[in-house]
């Protein structure tokens, strides 16, 4: 793998990302990654707790209008995440925790997509009324998925933060 890491780390873009001493380059990517996380996890969290029975007065079917906010967050994090990875490929790709984090993200997104289909696309007939999407009409399966989604995103956040403390190599050169 080392020649591959060296190849990425020697490129002009990733050298720029790593070595530019400006708060608008590498730190900005970290800020974007936190902003995207807040939008993505925050939105999914609200949908999940509503499915679990909190705030039953919020019409569930109307929450679907906030789903795109989560996708914007995902877009921001794919963008910032790819650049963070490109800047320090050795650091991430030699750490098993990185692969765990990526798996958690993929599973969380699959779980949310299933929730999205079942709760927003399947059951809701009217849009925005108070009568549809009530807690009673939610299947136990949806509640289990919502619980799983919360656990997966919390685990992703822990995995992401712990990446800063568990890497063994920073770049291919050391």
């Amino acid at each position, binding site marked *: 793998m080392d020649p591959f890491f060296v190849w990425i780390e020697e490129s002009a873009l990733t050298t720029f990302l790593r070595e530019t001493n400006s708060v608008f380059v590498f730190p900005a990517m970290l800020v974007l990654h936190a902003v995207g996380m807040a939008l993505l996890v925050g939105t999914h969290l*609200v949908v999940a707790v509503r499915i679990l029975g909190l705030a039953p007065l919020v019409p569930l079917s*109307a929450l679907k209008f*906030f789903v795109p906010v989560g996708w914007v967050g995902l877009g921001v994090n794919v963008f910032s995440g790819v650049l963070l990875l490109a800047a320090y490929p050795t650091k991430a790709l030699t750490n098993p925790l990185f692969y765990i984090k990526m798996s958690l993200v993929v599973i969380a997104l699959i779980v949310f997509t299933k929730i999205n289909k079942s709760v927003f696309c399947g059951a809701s007939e009217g849009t*925005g009324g108070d009568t549809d999407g009530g807690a009673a009409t939610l299947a136990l399966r949806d509640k289990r998925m919502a619980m799983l989604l919360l656990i997966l995103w919390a685990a992703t956040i822990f995995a992401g933060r712990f990446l800063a*403390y568990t890497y063994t190599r920073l770049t291919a050169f050391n």
Partner: protein
Amino acid sequence: MIEDFEMWARATQWGEFGRSSQWVWATTESLHFVGLSLLIGTVGLFDLRLMGMAKSIPVAALHRLIPLGIAGYAVNLFTGSLFLCAYPDQYLYNRAFQFKMAFMVLAGLNILAFYSAGFRQAKTVGPGEDASLQIRLIAAFSFFLWFGVLTCGRLLTFYRP
């Protein structure tokens, strides 16, 4: 006065606990991120609704989510106090931290403005209805300020004194 606080904070057992292991630190940071997701997920979506997104949700209904945001805020006060007590000098004299606190004070004042001036009216904004211009401005300001808090928080490490 700041020095007194700094000495006092550093000497607390809470601060000592924060310095005890990097795993304590990493776990507390992770919880701080979970707390901010709770806060921004609820307050941010509430702000977006007031600004005109997802209008089919009545404002009063979405307001029911706010206690969850307050819970996230409480988690972050608790976890944030560990960072501050462990290494007070790293925060008190850090420009990013000072800006973060300023953003939080402004966000607090903005919340006061919302509940004193607009909430009674905002509560009545039903499905499909727009909030008043004043409420929309307060909501936009809130959205901006909380992301300002988040940005300064993430940049803390680059402004260490």
